[in-house]
């Protein structure tokens, strides 16, 4: 189809070139992502000198500090633990709840609606909610766990290094499992019925049906949900910031939180920038690898 071009300004706007249409977007992305990226790289070769009260060039010092910094490796391990454990829990739990809610019975629409509510709460406020519920003295969750004998009265959930990360994870599970449920549910609702009828005639068990029919047909939906949730899990910051500030020790330090605290609490501007760059590179590599392997397409 040929396109009628007019002249002048009008022609510029209505011409076939996508440039004027994309220009504002590209301008924003360049100013707010490309420029900061280069600024960050520049920062990582500098450090704030408290006595000179300015940034000085330090070469690759920040990068060698990074390799020898045990707290960095601990933050990396917390980040990956948080990422893998929560991805697994949220996918499995999300699928179980989605299968449970996949029904046309009256009332199930309401249940789906109620589950969407957790998604719009500011994560910082969710953190405060769980901080209240996990309070060692008057927290309702502490009380329940103690009543059930799971928790002894002595160890506060968020101030004990063995349980603090689990306490933070609980907030994330509560807030984002419904994300998985809603996506999986939409996938399940759109599956064709015929394969299920055939499977039933063949006498397949519920588990076989799920394993051989549901899972393969849901693979694209699961891949997209895992990608988007995975990106956010890797960047986790809000919950630990308000609930534990990374402590006790380094038990809830994620890479994002460690980078932020180095920059703003300890005035290690260059080192914080270096840490944030590591987190950026890791997430871009992992996410793009996943997109490539799982063949997710937009």
């Amino acid at each position, binding site marked *: *189809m040929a*396109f*009628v071009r007019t002249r002048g300004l009008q022609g510029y*706007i*209505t011409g076939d070139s*996508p440039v004027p*249409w*994309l220009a*504002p*977007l590209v301008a*924003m*992305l360049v100013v707010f*992502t490309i420029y*900061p990226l280069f600024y*960050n790289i520049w*920062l990582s070769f500098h450090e704030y000198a408290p006595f000179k009260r300015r940034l000085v060039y330090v070469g690759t010092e920040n990068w060698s500090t990074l390799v020898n910094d045990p707290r960095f490796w601990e933050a990396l391990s917390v980040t990956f633990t948080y990422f893998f454990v929560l991805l697994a829990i949220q996918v499995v739990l999300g699928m179980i*709840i989605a299968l*449970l809610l996949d029904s046309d*019975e009256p009332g199930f629409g309401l249940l789906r*609606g*109620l*589950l*969407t*509510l957790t*998604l*719009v*709460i*500011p*994560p*910082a*406020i969710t953190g*405060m*909610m769980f901080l*209240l*519920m996990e309070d060692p*003295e*008057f*927290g309702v969750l502490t*009380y329940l766990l103690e009543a059930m004998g799971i928790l002894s009265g002595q160890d506060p959930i968020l101030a004990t290094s063995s349980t603090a990360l689990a306490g933070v994870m609980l907030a994330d599970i509560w807030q984002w499992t*419904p994300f998985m449920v*809603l*996506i999986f549910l939409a*996938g399940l609702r*759109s599956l064709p019925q015929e394969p299920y*009828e055939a499977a039933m005639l063949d006498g397949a068990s519920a588990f076989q049906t799920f394993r051989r029919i549901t899972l393969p047909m849901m693979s694209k939906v699961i891949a*997209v949900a895992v990608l988007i949730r995975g*990106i956010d899990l890797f960047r986790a910051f*809000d919950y630990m*910031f*308000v609930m534990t500030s990374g402590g006790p020790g380094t038990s809830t330090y994620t890479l*994002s939180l460690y*980078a*932020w605290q180095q920059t703003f609490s300890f005035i290690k*501007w260059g080192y*914080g920038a270096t840490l*944030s760059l590591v*987190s*950026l590179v890791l997430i871009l590599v992992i*996410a793009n690898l996943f997109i490539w392997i799982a063949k997710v*397409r937009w």
Partner: protein
Amino acid sequence: MIVESKYRRYSRMAAAWLITALFVFPLYYWGTTAFKEAKEIFSVPPTVWSFTPTLRNFEEVFGISFGFLRQQEVLPGGGNFYMAPRLWDSIVVAVFSTALAIAISTFAAYALSRMDFRGRHHFVAWVLSTRMMPPVAVAIPMFFIYKDIGLMDSYTGIILIHALMNLPLAVLLLKSFFDDIPREIDESAIVDGASRWKIFRRIILPMAKGGIAATAVLCFIFSWTEFIFVLTLTQTGLKTVPVVSSSFVTSTGTAWGNMAALGVAAMAPAFLFILLVQKQLVRGLTLGSLKQ
């Protein structure tokens, strides 16, 4: 049609209600905390069902009297927990950043949906990859850049950065809504002599109204709930609701009731909005990749 046995049907219903109740409980507990007096918040064992409701927490947070506190005791600007201006900050930032994100992304999404140019897939991949950037890797350099150019602590600065944060979502989501409009409609309009600009304004925008509204709602919610950019790029000038939670932690203990009251006020509009976009929610959450 696959028919469930009566036993399975009832056990499914019971399990579904039970699980949903588990997810709703923290909301219920937080919501009721907003209406509790301090002594009931700190009681052991915790009060869950029976307590004497009070509006005192809301009065302190919003600086208005409902009769639980005398008006003289409610001091706008004077009380530590007076948060009405923070709600206003949140609204201004969310509204303007959403408007900016939508304005920029409708143009871009139209080009990505309707024009076949070289490198389009790479362009989409680039937009998507900006969604992957850890906020901290943007917030740290932006802190220094904003300091240099004087955008620290300003509405403009936060609005720009929130709009940026929502751009990948808005562009990809709007593209998916524009893709739903059959290309034949554009083609017949071109035959009738309409320009691209006219097609965009008179055909695409009106036909994608619902999609644009849903996208705007999601942008609003993500700005409303955003934490790390506001935390990093503001000092005293403005603060949105998620960031002020720490100001309820005082040397004499945490003002849980007041914080819960503010939390409830922050959640209410978001709950309302999300119910409006139920139909497009999954598409929105997956950046336009999955259609319901």
